[in-house]
């Protein structure tokens, strides 16, 4: 096969044309480098993504024309990763950036070999190239194992959350429901990721928030019950303009403790959120989660 290609090289490929292709590809890869470095410094900076995508795309198409099939394959994998990033389906995390930078270095090395009229890839570097393309391919597929590892941590934090909230029946119940949804979601992730992921957390978040408010309504109706004082206080704050209310000092203390606990819970939520975002496999969940967290935060702050 390699002999065939070199045969063709001598007959078909004008070295000057190939030289021009190499020059322009090198130039494009230099620009790619600087875009990637900018993106690494600031992962939200997506401006360069399109030009990086275009560079990989044209190297992919052109290299096949010149018969550099390994360059083509690698550029194709890099293009796949960039397409996901451009569409917002893959974040510029460290493994992703490392994969891209390693890919660009490898492309440059292969182009340099071609310039020296050697084969695209040294025989002893084939395994390394295969490993690199494999890594880039795996970046494009949500890592099942990573996801599986993620769930126990999330569920454990929810268990803690439930025990913290055990003294508030309504809120506790809402969180238990959310926990149940997540449990259903965990195995579903492996079979039907997108639909399950989009639907359940949204529902769960919706369920949780009204339940939260319901508890304050219920409290309002049953003032002086054994419920914690928090929602009562909230209602009191809301209606302060209209009427006043005597509250036992002990209740105020309980309430402040409760707020303290809420802040802790918020921290736990924030932690779970961070884990979800870092794993990057559950974009919908983490977006829904972020919204739920923001609602929770503003409710806590209102208190």
């Amino acid at each position, binding site marked *: *096969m390699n002999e*065939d*290609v070199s045969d*063709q090289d001598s*007959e*078909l490929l*004008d070295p*000057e*044309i190939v030289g*021009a292709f190499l020059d322009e590809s090198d130039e494009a890869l230099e620009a790619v480098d600087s875009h990637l470095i900018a993106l690494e410094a600031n992962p939200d900076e997506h401006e360069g993504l399109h030009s990086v995508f275009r560079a990989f795309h044209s190297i*992919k*198409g*052109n290299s*096949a*024309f*010149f*018969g550099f*099939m390994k360059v*083509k*394959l690698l550029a*194709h994998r890099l293009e796949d990763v960039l397409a996901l990033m451009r569409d917002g389906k893959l974040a510029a995390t460290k493994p992703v950036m490392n994969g891209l930078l390693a890919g660009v270095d490898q492309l440059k090395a292969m182009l340099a070999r071609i310039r020296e009229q050697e084969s695209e890839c040294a025989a002893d570097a084939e395994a390394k190239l295969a490993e690199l393309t494999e890594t880039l391919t795996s970046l494009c597929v949500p890592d099942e194992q990573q996801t599986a590892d993620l769930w126990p941590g999330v569920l454990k934090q929810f268990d803690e959350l439930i025990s913290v909230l055990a003294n508030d029946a309504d809120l506790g119940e809402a969180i238990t429901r959310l926990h149940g949804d997540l449990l259903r979601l965990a195995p579903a992730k492996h079979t039907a990721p997108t639909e399950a992921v989009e639907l359940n957390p949204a529902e769960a978040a919706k369920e949780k928030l009204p339940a939260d408010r319901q508890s304050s309504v219920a409290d309002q109706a049953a003032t002086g019950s054994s419920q914690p004082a928090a929602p009562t206080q909230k209602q009191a704050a809301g209606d302060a303009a209209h009427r006043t209310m005597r509250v036992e000092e002990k209740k105020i203390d309980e309430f402040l403790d409760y707020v303290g606990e809420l802040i802790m819970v918020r921290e736990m939520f924030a932690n779970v959120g961070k884990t979800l975002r870092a794993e990057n496999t559950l974009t919908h969940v983490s977006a829904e989660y972020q919204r739920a967290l923001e609602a929770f935060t503003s409710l806590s702050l209102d208190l």
Partner: protein
Amino acid sequence: MKSRILIVDDEAEIRDLLHRHFRYLGYDVDTASGGQDALAMLAQTRTDIVVSDINMPGMDGVALLEAVRQDYPMIRVVMMTGYVSQENILACMRKGAETCIFKPLEDLAILERAVFNAEKVTKHWWRILSELRSAKPDVEVVSQA
């Protein structure tokens, strides 16, 4: 300059016939028995022209045409079909085939001409690429002047 042709047909007889014929005409020829097989060949070897049947089990010729346009946009594709329907022909046009030849291939001259024309397009672009070299310094001179 030899062009490299990939013949794709699920019928071994046709593959062999075309393989022999185009080799005799001086082309480098590879063969594949279906769409997937063809894509595996294309990933390995630089190819100028694909000649593919449309009706094949598994990945058919139209799907292959589409994949080639997507991944190897510089390869010219000549289609062949024994199952003549307007939809097939329109699909070939829509997806950018050079032409479509009807089977049975009683007169190989028609296919030969199609391949020759496809080759001419590629050669044309090679010529443009080599003219680029002599065109470039002129541009610089003009910009200096």
